[in-house]
């Protein structure tokens, strides 16, 4: 049987991949996708824990997280679209009117 730590490591790897994506990418959409990746990494972790702890709670959590992620995506895309309409860009480097 694959040990728990393996799942956790994969989860962590995915999470970090997401983090790095958020930190390095400039396209708002890609950044947003990276965040979703992070959420999914957490989901994986939850499921793995649930499986190994023999508790269903973790699996239930995943459903909630997916719902939340869906809501975030809906709102997020709308915001990015609104931005694009005004600025014709989704590059976060060009979005720095507010600073100081």
């Amino acid at each position, binding site marked *: 049987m694959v040990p728990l730590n393996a799942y956790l490591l994969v989860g962590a790897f995915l999470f970090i991949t997401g*983090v790095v994506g*958020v*930190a*390095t990418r*400039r396209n708002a959409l890609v*950044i947003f996708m990276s965040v979703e990746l992070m959420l999914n990494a957490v989901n994986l972790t939850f499921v793995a824990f649930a499986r190994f702890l023999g508790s269903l709670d973790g699996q239930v959590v995943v459903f909630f997280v997916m719902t939340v992620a869906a809501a975030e995506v809906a709102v997020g895309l709308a915001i990015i679209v609104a931005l694009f309409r005004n600025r014709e860009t989704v590059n*976060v*480097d060009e*979005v*720095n*009117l*507010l*600073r*100081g």
Partner: protein
Amino acid sequence: MSVPEALWLIPACPLAGALLNGLLGRRFPRRLVGAVGCASVGAAFLAALAGLQALLALPPEARRLESALFPWITSGDLRASVGLLWDPLAAVMALVVTGVGFCIHVYSLGYMGDDRDYPRYFAFLNLFAFFMLVLVLADNYLLLFLGWEGVGLCSYLLIGFWFERERAAEAGKKAFLVNRVGDAGFLVGLFLLWTAFGTFDFGALFGRMAGTPAGDPVLTAVALLLFFGAAGKSAQLPLYVWLPDAMEGPTPVSALIHAATMVTAGVYMVARSSPLYDRTPEVLAIIAWVGALTAVFAATIACAQNDIKRVIAYSTISQLGYMFLGLGVGAYASGIFHLTTHAFFKAFWSKDEILAAAQHGGFTGPWLLGLGGAFLTAFYMFRCFALTFAGTFRGEPGGLTRVHDAPPSMAVPILLLAALAVVGGGLGVPPERGLLHGFLAPVLPAPSGAPAAAPEGGVGTALLSVTLALAGAALAGLWYGRRPAIPARLAARFPGLHRLVAGKFFVDEVYAAVIVRPLESLARWCYRVGDGVLVEGAVNGTAALVEWGSRALRRVQTGFVPNYVVSILLGTVLLLAYLAFGR
């Protein structure tokens, strides 16, 4: 009303005059101003005379009347009251003050007749008389100090009376400040007195002092400190510097005040403190030395001055030196006698008496100095006389026409004083047994150590002194009357010495260089560097630092999302690292 109850009237009269003239004088007609001014002091004089009579009616031992008026400063065991003391010493002083004061007032009627500040002048003069009377009538040191500072104030006001002249204002300030220096010593002396004996009251104080061994360090310190104060008020070395400048005031009047009354406050105070000084012979020796040195020092300077007022000023200092010499050798009564006669103008009797006492007391050094001083005194007085009246007119052409004889109101008091000067000498005849001495005896005992009767020695000294004085006069007459070239040649021969003497030994300059200017520089440094750089630097530096931090933080806030992400990440990593390894 009995004497003690009415005693307050003596100082109250001039005070009332001062208040009247000071507050309402500008609305009074001029004559009324003068009348109020003179009458108030005249009334005080009459009151003092009445008091004297009452005193004389008592047996000598009982000639001490007290009148407690009201408590002044009361705090715990510190109690100072306003109370007056009427004994022979106070009476003599009160008479001198009111008598000479009255003359000055009358004289001023004429002298200041044209001055626009007539009321102010009389107000100040009355106020002066008031404080002077408080000083001499006070029954405790603190009230004496009130009068003491009060006359200092009046002297400040009178010297600077013509305040529009910078020099007058400056001189007034100088007088006050130098006096303050002395007063600071006086104050510390008072603190010490109170700390050691718990009272300021003369009677109680001297009573308690009697239980203290002579030469007690506290007593010595008190005596020295009080004398320091006296040196300020009475223009002794090293605090005499204000007096020559004080001649900036309305000329003869102010000079008379400084020559005749106020400066004698120090002499009076030391005499009043005779029970204290009797127990501190070493301080008396110092006083004698200071007095003698001052006498010679000032006389020397007087010899080289060309301004009459200056000559008189230094002469005053010199005479004050004699008075202190007298006090220093324990001849309190002689000192007061000299004071009295000096007030009337000049008297050689009294000085001789002092010198005799000095000789008897074994004060050889001061004695010799005093003799030298006598010579010098005669020299500069005759020099002055010769240069003023006998020589050729040296002023600008036409100036002579402005010199005129005095109006009666000025002439009468002068004549009166001149007469008193002559008669006054008689008060002290014969030495040691004179009327005045006898009267003062209950308060001021004869010099300890000196036998009451030592006529031959006294006469000898007197002869010596008179001889020297005659020599001095003759020399002055020779040099300045007959052979004016000699002093000039001497001056050319010893230019350094002449410059030193003519420049008054440059004491003012030394004080300026050693005390005043360094303090002023220090003040500027404190302001510029202490406040401006150090304190303000710290204050504004802190503010600048915070503002700098704020600007730096502003730059960090770039507006770029990735930067913010990095900040969160960094925080997370550090946090987790701390949780993992930091504990």
